[in-house]
């Protein structure tokens, strides 16, 4: 079997040999991993694959292995969210997306590493140590779904699920040279996904090619009555994959090409836009004047929601518990010891932003700025079909380089977080290299217009060969 397989190739191998052999092969590769991409490798994977061989399965993903970010609940596997405070916690229920995957016959290989509680852009805040970028083991894979992107890039899983609150699927996709989609808000159920910022996040697929993204979306997307924010869109994702962008109108927002942008990234992205031109699309500059305020608005909203979402972690019912004389002290000590520094910082900031006297100045203000950012997207997308820009302003940085100063790290979300504020869909596709490191092109669309977004991504892929490149470090 080849080291890197598309889902189609995996399925063919399953037909020719067996699900058990394919899963065993992936487990073997994982066993030799140099990247620390998995927090937990499932001890039930082989058994699940065997069962599918023995009993047969009609589902579209029968026997296909998948890696799951460690904030998505899978029965029987620990759910750490990259944190010490959830030590030992094993969920008694499956997330909606997991139920869909299991019904389709998928085999869960394990849970992947992430920034603690999804708070980060480099997977360096994980209690389980950083994950290495397969393209350069001294560099970060991006975050917070760094584990998921890295294992896909390293051939340790055919595809994976991540979650994207401010760029957490697209950033690692760009840094690791894989495809990552953040669906429209409401397209995929959040039931079972540990919340960081409820009004901003979505589960997103990561894969080595656009078709596999669509295959995964056709399984996991759709209405879930257990998620009150779930929307009943009946999109068919694979059907949208047509190699044709003639007449497509592309908008290029100048605000996404800010001062700090790496010249190699800028060149690769512009080359990509010109590629679309050569394929029959047209492009124009669009203006989105409020984008520069998006980062502050995003962080205030995310931290505020997070400060409330993480209040349940107090050692009372599950996870790590520090002992103390009384309950309040127990909780304070448990959270001091169980949470990492970045998580604590964000909880404190979020608490402050919601507190009496500051609520209007920060939280309410951020929500109003969100309206302006959303209006920018509505306006820009009314003139064009898609927007294109760099996913990240620079390629993968070194492990340890940015982690000391939170603000520097926050600034790397400048191109991804506005999309979460507006709730529109956005995919990152590999569009070149700079200094040997992958560069991601971000393609954004109208709400629920994943078909156009994925068609553009697919067309680009069919007419370039970046998606065929593999990281030499782990070959």
């Amino acid at each position, binding site marked *: 079997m080849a080291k890197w397989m598309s889902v189609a190739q995996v399925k063919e191998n399953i037909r020719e040999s067996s699900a058990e052999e394919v899963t065993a092969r992936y487990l073997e590769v994982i066993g030799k991993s140099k990247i620390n991409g998995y927090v937990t490798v499932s001890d039930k994977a082989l058994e699940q694959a065997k069962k599918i061989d023995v009993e047969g399965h009609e589902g579209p993903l029968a026997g296909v292995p998948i890696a799951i970010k460690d904030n998505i609940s899978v029965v029987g596997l620990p759910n750490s969210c990259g944190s010490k405070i959830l030590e030992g916690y094993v969920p008694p229920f499956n997330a909606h997306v997991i139920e869909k995957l299991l019904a389709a016959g998928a085999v869960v290989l394990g849970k992947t590493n992430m920034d603690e509680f999804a708070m980060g852009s480099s997977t360096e805040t994980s209690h389980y140590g950083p994950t290495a970028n397969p393209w350069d083991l001294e560099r970060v894979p991006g975050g917070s779904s760094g584990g998921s992107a890295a294992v896909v890039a390293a051939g340790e899983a055919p595809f994976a699920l991540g979650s994207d609150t401010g760029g957490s699927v697209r950033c690692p996709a760009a840094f690791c040279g894989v495809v990552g989609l953040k669906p429209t808000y409401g397209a995929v159920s959040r039931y079972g996904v540990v919340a960081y910022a409820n009004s901003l996040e979505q589960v997103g697929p990561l894969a080595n090619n656009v078709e596999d993204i669509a295959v995964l979306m056709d399984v996991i997307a759709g209405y879930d009555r257990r998620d009150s924010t779930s929307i009943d869109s009946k999109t068919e994702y694979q059907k949208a994959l047509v190699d044709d962008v003639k007449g497509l109108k592309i908008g290029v927002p100048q605000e996404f090409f800010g001062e700090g942008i790496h010249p190699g990234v800028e060149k690769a992205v512009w080359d990509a836009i010109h590629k679309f031109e050569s394929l029959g699309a047209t492009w124009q500059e669009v203006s989105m004047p409020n984008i520069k305020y998006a980062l502050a608005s995003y962080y205030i909203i995310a931290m505020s929601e997070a400060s409330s979402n993480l209040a349940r972690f107090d050692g009372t019912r599950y996870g790590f518990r520090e002992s103390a004389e009384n309950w309040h002290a127990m909780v304070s000590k448990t959270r001091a010891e169980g949470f990492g520094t970045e998580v604590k910082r964000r909880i404190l900031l979020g608490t402050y932003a919601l507190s009496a006297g500051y609520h209007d100045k920060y939280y309410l203000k951020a929500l*109003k700025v969100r309206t302006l950012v959303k209006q920018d997207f509505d306006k820009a997308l009314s003139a064009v079909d898609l927007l294109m820009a760099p996913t990240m302003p620079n390629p993968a940085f070194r492990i340890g380089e940015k982690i000391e100063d939170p603000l520097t790290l926050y600034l790397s979300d400048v191109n991804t977080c506005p999309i979460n504020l507006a709730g529109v869909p956005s995919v990152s596709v590999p569009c070149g290299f700079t200094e040997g490191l992958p560069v991601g092109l971000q393609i954004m669309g109208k709400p629920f217009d994943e078909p156009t977004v994925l068609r553009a991504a697919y067309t680009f892929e069919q007419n370039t060969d970046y998606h065929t490149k593999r990281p030499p470090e782990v070959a």
Partner: protein
Amino acid sequence: MITKEDVEHIGWLARIEINEQETVEYMEKLNSVLEYFGQLDELPTEDVAPTYHVAEIYNVFREDVVEECLSQETVLANTEHKQDGAFRVPKIG
């Protein structure tokens, strides 16, 4: 900007124990982030409505139909601090 007392107060509201040294560190880091957040004051927003949800959805309900519960054993499985079927914690204090 945030003072040491503010950090202590929000530390209490958020139930995160913070020692002397950490209080100073948090104060500095939080202030630098808050300073960045302050740029939002540049934007006039008196006539702008806040966006709580990107999609305008109303009236999402479920029917009053019973569904299966978890067993007591499953509920308590994730902790060793239990007694007589209940979760056990120290006195509230």
